[in-house]
Structure formats: C-alpha cells, structure tokens
C-alpha cells in the first residue's frame, strides 16, 4: 500500500495488526488447512519474529514456526509474507498493512503451520550436486595451506553468504512446476565451487551435475530468486555465467 494513504493511528495508541496465519498440522489426520486471525498491538520496531513469539506466548502455544538467530543469518524463519517469500525476522510490521497474511514456504515439506523442513531438501540438493571441495591430492597436514588469491576468496565469500533459507526456491516459477529443478541455491553453490581453486572439478564435471533441464538449462530467467533473496546474492549474474560456461561444454561435445 502507498504509505502516504495509510491511515495513521493517533500518536500514543499502538496500531492493532491482524496476522492471518495459514494453520495446518500434517501429522494430525483431523487437521485441515485453514487461516486463523491473531490480533497483536504493534510495538515500535516490531518484527514478525517478535509478533509471532508474542502470539505463541500469549494467545496460542500450539502455533508452529521456526526461528534461531532472529538476525537474518540462520535462514530458519523464511515464510510467505503477503504471498512473497521473505525472512520473518527481517520484516518490520510497520512496513506492512493492517492485515498481514503468513503462509509456510511452498515446495518444501510442511512440518506444521509456518514450519517447513528446508533442511531435508538442502541436504538432498547438497548430495545431488556434491557441494563440497573435490580434491584427491594427498593431504600433508604439516605443510602450509596453499594461499588463495584475495579476489577469489572475496568472490567465494560473496556467494557463501547464502543462508539456505529456501526463499529463492519458493520464489522460482520453474521450481513450482518442476520439482526436480535445482533452483538458484543449487546453481549458486555450483558457481561457488567453480571459483574455488582447491576444487579440481572441470566444467565437464559440473556439466554432469547441472547440465540439463533440471539444472541450469531449466532456468527460465524469471528472476524471482534474485528479487526475493534476503541476502541480495547476485543470483542473476551467477546463473547467466554458469549457463554460458556450460553451454560451451555442450557445444564442445565430448
């Protein structure tokens, strides 16, 4: 809503906001998905994290949602806020209207209410894409570690800021249609290990992992991932870069 048009409460009286939360417990056969409204008095600087905790503490202890760090670092609290994937702990209620709808991230396994099992999917993706340094050289524990160019280290660090919150996958139109799509998070990880000088894998090896329509060539560049990423990762450029490199592998043939 345009902020200037929003009705302002009188100074001194807190705004009363409605959190419209999608409730469902898949473990309970009697549970059906439904929306439930909770009224909360807004406090100054209130985030959705604070609001949800207040609801759980004072109104409904059965409300399920995930939080760990409350500072946008752990990635647990990603949910659909007014339909868009975002981190609840980094969302101020003052930036939203009087009614805020909250729903669990789609695509991932639902644990209950707003809590989804992103970890399970992340683990599977990690194994599928082999997102760790591959290096068969024997390790000499007494030798000094090989130095890394500062520019490489910076580039790796930039992409390693990914917190695996799942927002990019929930914001991806391709992933909604095709569950096997690796999503921006998978492609970002491949881009990260491609930079790493310790990783001995070639573009041909990376092609084996993401060189198909479930990988980089399945991406339709809708950029939902790039626009919802709470860490502002350069996903658009990373995916384009990977696409160019792996397209060359495809052209080279064997």
């Amino acid at each position, binding site marked *: 809503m345009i902020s200037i048009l929003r009705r302002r409460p009188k100074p001194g009286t807190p705004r009363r906001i409605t959190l419209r939360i999608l409730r469902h417990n*898949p473990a309970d056969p009697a549970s059906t998905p439904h929306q439930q409204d909770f009224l909360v008095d807004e406090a100054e600087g209130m985030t959705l994290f604070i609001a949800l905790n207040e609801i759980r503490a004072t109104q409904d202890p059965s409300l399920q949602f995930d939080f760990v760090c409350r500072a946008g670092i752990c990635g647990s609290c990603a949910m*659909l806020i007014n*339909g*868009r994937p975002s981190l609840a702990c980094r969302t101020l209620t003052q930036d939203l209207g009087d009614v805020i709808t909250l729903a669990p991230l*789609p695509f*991932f*396994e*639902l644990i209950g209410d707003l809590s989804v099992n992103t970890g*399970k*999917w992340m*683990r*599977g*993706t*990690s*194994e*599928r894409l*082999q997102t*760790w340094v*591959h*290096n*068969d050289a024997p390790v000499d524990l007494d030798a000094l570690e090989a130095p890394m160019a500062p520019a490489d280290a910076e580039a790796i660090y930039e992409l390693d800021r990914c917190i695996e919150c799942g927002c990019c996958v929930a*914001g991806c*139109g391709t992933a*909604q*249609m*095709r*569950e*096997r799509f690796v999503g921006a998070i998978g492609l970002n990880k491949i881009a990260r290990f491609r930079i790493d000088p310790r990783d001995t*894998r070639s573009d*041909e*090896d990376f*092609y*084996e*992992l993401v*060189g*198909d*329509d479930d990988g980089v*060539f399945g*991406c*339709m*560049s*809708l*950029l*939902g991932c*790039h626009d*919802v990423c709470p860490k502002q990762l350069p996903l*658009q*450029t990373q995916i*384009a*870069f990977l*696409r*160019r490199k*792996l*397209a060359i*592998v*495809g*052209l*080279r*043939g*064997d």
Partner: protein
Amino acid sequence: MTRLINNEDGSDLMVSDAAGQIALPAPTLAPVAVPEVGTGKPARHGKSRWPARLDLLQSATGLFLALFLMAHMFFVSSILISHDAFYYVARFFEGEFFLGKPYPILVSGVVALILTIFVAHAWLAMRKFPAGYRQYRAFVAHKNNLRHGDTSLWWLQIWTGFALFFMATIHLYDMLTQPALIGPYESADRVWTGNMWPLYLMLLLAAELHASIGLYRLAIKWGWFDSAKPNLSRRRLRWAKHGISAFYITLGLVTLAAYVDLGRAHVDKAGERYVPTHLSAPAATGKH
C-alpha cells in the same frame, strides 16, 4: 571424485514422503568409460550435450526471429514514406535490382526459411510450457501470489507465443504462396478487401510483445549488457524493453492504419496492380 557418504542407492533421507517431496538421488559420478562395441572408441557415459544445444538453439532462433521482426517492420512501414518507397522495397527483395527482373520465388524462399526457423523455435520453446493441469495450476497460483514483474511477463510470453503458433502461420503461408502480391495496392487490398486487418492487428501486438520480452529475457539469461550492479543493468534492460515494445507497436499501428486507409480508398479497384510513378503516364492514371 570423492563422495560425502558412501551410499550407492542415494540418500535414505531422501525417500518420498506423505508431503509429496520427491527423492533427489545423487548422481553416480566418475563414470567408467567402456569402449563402444565395434568402434573401439571409448563411450561417454555422462550427461547428454543436447540440453545445452537445445537451450542455445532456442535462444538463437528467438534472437533471429526478433531481429527479423524488427527489420520486417521497417520494410513494411516504408509505405509511410511513399507508395513508391514500399514498391521498391518489395521489388528489391524479389531481386529486381540484381537480376534485372523480379523473381517472387526469392520471397517464397526467404519465407520458407523464416517458417522453418519459426517452427523450430516454437518446438523448442514449447518445452518450457506448463505440462498438464498440475503445472499450470502451480504456476498460476505462484504468479498471483508473488506479484512479480518478470514472472508475470513470462506468462504474457507464453500466451503471446501460443497465439503466434496460429496467427503467424496464417501470415507466413499467405506470403509463401503469394509472394508476388506484395506492393502498395496489393498489400492494402489484402489488408482491407481481403479482411486481413483484424489478424494483422492481433499479430502485431502478439509478435511485438513476445519479441521484446524475449529479447529482454535473452539479455538476462546470457548476461548481456551486464554492469557491475545487476539491478542497474536490469533496470536499463527493462527500459529498453518498454521502449522497443512502445516504438514497434506504435510504428506498426500507424503502418497498419496507412494500409487500411489505402485499402479503403482502393476498394473499388481491388486487385489492380500498383505501377510506380516513373512508369505510369500521369495523363493515363491521373495520379502519381
């Protein structure tokens, strides 16, 4: 390559469950190259290179068609300069200035090439369409929830592309079979007396929108015109896309209006061939 866990059948964590999450099996890497029977050449057991090639082909055919469309619009809109200008553009493509006399078959040849590339592009792009009701529903729900410009643009691209399957084919078949009937009167008669203007109007909107969105998507997809800040380059590309759409749709509408106007004025003599100014004796025709 090393593996984190030695479980050959994929991870047991990844078994499909009640929530519908499907198993994502880890691929078997380090394939053993077994010599192909008969040839002695080691066979590659890795992934097919075709997904990469099809992706490139989809982009290349789309780029070609979009550039052709832009050039095409300039040729067609030469009617806005004068009847003669369009007449000479048409004769130029029939090779009159190189071969001495017009050969409309050359136009048919170009149309056949465009039609082939068009069909190839349609076939390649169709791979991205939602397959089946579940995918369709999932995407529409996602698009409506997200309210995100680029996601919604893709939906427009799908539908304009779908419309082009039919509308562009009609136009291409027309040009393929009647290449000689391209000229100021001939085209204007086709537009008005031949009742083609509603088709051309819809075709114009669908083609120009589809092409400008497609060019924008191509630039994003392959990282063209990148700047240090991705959001800045994207903003520029978006403006370029809006500009291209607006310019070509406006030019197209004005051009179509010119043909409609000429077609209405020429309705009594529909079917008459256009004769350029320098060949027509002013006393004989009374105009030009």
